[in-house]
């Protein structure tokens, strides 16, 4: 039996760092931003116009609805939930607004459109918090119901927007020189990022997603936070729908159907975990931008439509692998 006694001076406990480095706080986001730049450059070597201002305008215009929707989905995902209903709410908002305008209402029809978001968000929130049903099931149901209502509203017909000024919502400039769709994206990004990072209620979103049980014992209003997340998500989906009909002055029952998976993908690419408790607004916006840039690139290069799915899938794979790889190199898990 070995017996040892070594004596040593008490080690001084190292100082604790209080500042959060920007680079380490936004590591995933930087990785995606890098991937986006690489993508744009790669497309640019094939199609020089990809680097033109016109194309950047195209990308932001095309990406704005997805960006806004992703910000909403992010809020739900941070609390540990999921929202499958956003695409349907997007479509239904458009149909309801267009129909309301057709029956004589002025721009206030947009408020009715936002009402769609409020109603469906509240239903989602209610069923998740009060009835205690699983978010996936609840929002799958509202996905089906809102999607079906989007057809019922106009009996399946697509609707032109009568009010000629309505396009100002999307393409006007509240701040001279900055089109509204860009303004809205930036304002929402900043507001939501600050809310999540700096406001107490924002930190609650993460706490609830991290452990609802622990959050409850801490005195955090878990159900209210979840409810709010679903309402915000639906409202943003609604707003995104309004922005889109204002852009193309036409509402279509199927307008949002491809957006739901894209929005969730954007949030996840942006570093959020579907288990809850993580994710940033910057990440979600970059994730949405990345998806838009890939689609834009695929179109610019003129890749056969059949191949688009494969190319998009592989691009996303590379982006998440880069992120994953940069993480494991730093030893974090």
């Amino acid at each position, binding site marked *: 039996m070995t017996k040892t006694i070594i004596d040593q001076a008490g080690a001084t406990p190292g100082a604790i760092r209080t500042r959060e480095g920007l680079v380490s706080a936004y590591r995933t986001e930087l990785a995606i931003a890098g991937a986006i730049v690489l993508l744009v450059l790669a497309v640019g070597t094939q199609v020089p116009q990809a680097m033109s201002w016109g194309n950047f305008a195209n990308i932001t215009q095309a990406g704005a609805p997805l960006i806004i929707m992703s910000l909403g989905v992010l809020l739900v995902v941070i609390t540990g939930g999921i929202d499958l209903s956003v695409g349907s709410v997007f479509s239904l908002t458009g149909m309801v607004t267009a129909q309301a305008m057709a029956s004589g209402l002025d721009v206030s029809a947009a408020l009715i459109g936002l009402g769609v978001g409020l109603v469906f968000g509240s239903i989602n929130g209610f069923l998740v918090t009060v009835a205690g049903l699983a978010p996936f099931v609840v929002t799958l149901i509202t996905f089906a119901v809102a999607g079906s209502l989007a057809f019922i509203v106009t009996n399946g017909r697509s609707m032109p927007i009568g009010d000629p000024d309505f396009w100002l919502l999307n393409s006007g400039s509240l701040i001279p020189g900055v089109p509204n769709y860009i303004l809205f994206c930036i304002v929402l990004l900043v507001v939501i990022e600050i809310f999540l990072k700096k406001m107490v209620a924002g930190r609650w979103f993460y706490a609830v997603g991290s452990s609802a049980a622990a959050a409850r014992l801490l*005195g*955090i209003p878990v159900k209210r936070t979840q409810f709010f997340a679903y309402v915000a998500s639906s409202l943003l989906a609604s707003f995104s729908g309004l922005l889109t009909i204002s852009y193309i002055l036409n509402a279509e029952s199927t307008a949002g159907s491809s957006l739901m998976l894209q929005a969730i993908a954007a949030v996840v690419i942006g570093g959020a975990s579907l288990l809850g408790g993580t994710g940033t607004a910057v990440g979600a916006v970059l994730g949405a931008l990345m998806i838009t840039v890939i689609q834009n690139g695929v179109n610019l290069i003129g890749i056969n439509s059949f191949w688009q799915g494969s190319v998009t899938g592989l691009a996303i794979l590379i982006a998440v692998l880069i992120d994953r790889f940069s993480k494991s190199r730093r030893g974090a898990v």
Partner: protein
Amino acid sequence: MTDASKDIVSVRSLTKSYGATVVLKGVDFSVARGEIHALLGGNGAGKSTLIRVITGTAAKDGGELVFRDMAGNILTEADGRRKVAVVHQELALLPHLTVAESIALPHFRKGSRVYDGRTAGSQAYAALSMIDRDFAGTALNRLVGDLSLHEGQMVEIARALSSGAELILLDEPTANLTAAETERLFGVLRKLTRGNGLSVVFVSHRMKEIRQIAHVCSIIRDGRTVVGNVPTAELSDLAIIEHMGQAQATAVAHSARPAPVASLSDEPLTIAETGFSVTLQPGTILGVAGAPAGPETLIAALIGAAHERRWTVTRAGWPDRFRSPREAARLGAGFVTGDRSHRGILHSLPIIDNVLASRRATRGSLFATKREEVECLDLMQALKVKAGSLWHLPNTLSGGTQQKLLLARWLNVPSRLLVLEEPTRGVDIGTKREIYQLIRDMATTGTAIVWWSTENAELLEICDQVLAFDTEGRSSGVIERDELSEDKLATLTGMAA
């Protein structure tokens, strides 16, 4: 001289880092057959990490790890690990499985075999009944997710005991057990080591237990072995504490302390059930002792965690019953849970958010300010928390350090009532004393404290009065400070100390 062939496992110059943090800086450690070996060290010394390396859940960076068979032949690491069972500090529970299955499933090594529920049941029953016969009789078909923390701990121990392993590593297994269960566990361990040549590595921060059960001990400090294989009897308590690097820690006995300032309120608090009540003056520390069933319902009532009808809590300005922990927290009733991992730590949030969570929830401030960083740092220094940055995640901290984060949440928050479930669970000896002092200081400002502990010594040391529960969960009486003794506690709780 070394008789290495007697060792079932030995490590030499073991190193291990997580990223930039060097955790093990060259550990030597060996366990002989048939011994119960205490592995000691302060919070964050590297005990759990060492265990993880031995069991293969973490890969070593450098050094040597040798397993031997009965005849002293060196085994491959994979073969050696088959002879090892472990109870991790953070329990490895499978909430959707039944108790019987949780205990027996890991023993079926081959997936192609039929899972025989009956054999599994007998195996589980046999193992569980070694520690608690009553529990074994009722628990087999319950879901693990429905168990309390201390029941979960018994399931984990039963699994290790029934594994047929030759070496069992127990990382603070008694932290969640009652004195009686600990006693029975020790009985089983003694029998198994004597009869079957089983070896046990035992980690605990409770000096009394170490002396009761361990033949020899090793002490690690800051990732290095400072004491290796010394018979426990040869070291005094003070020497052990000194080797752990906590010489400053003095045994503060219960001393007369200044009367509570009672600045917050002079309202007393009355806790009552049918035919029984106890009144808690501001600034007093009420200990709660006994089998978990009783204290659990009382605490749920105190913090509004369950729709508890048995207890009423009366205090001017408070409702008859809190409807939620949120209401309780806002009216000044704080709570530190005993279930650190599942109901305490916010695993995906950095340390700072974990520490400040309850302050933010109760203060009603809108923004998370920069000032909070300073506040958080102060709290961490008061509790001697070892961490690289406020922005690291809690799972980079040792178990005891995570416990300190939970306590920090309520430290110096002006509250009328603070309910603590095993607040020093897993906290090392040195810091424990300081925590006692910090809590006393809080009491001095008028906060009433309810302190549930399964460690009687702790209750004796800190409490003004103790409310005891019997094994059936009924309250069996209040013991005042002057009458407080181990014997009295044992009689009232129906559990031998």
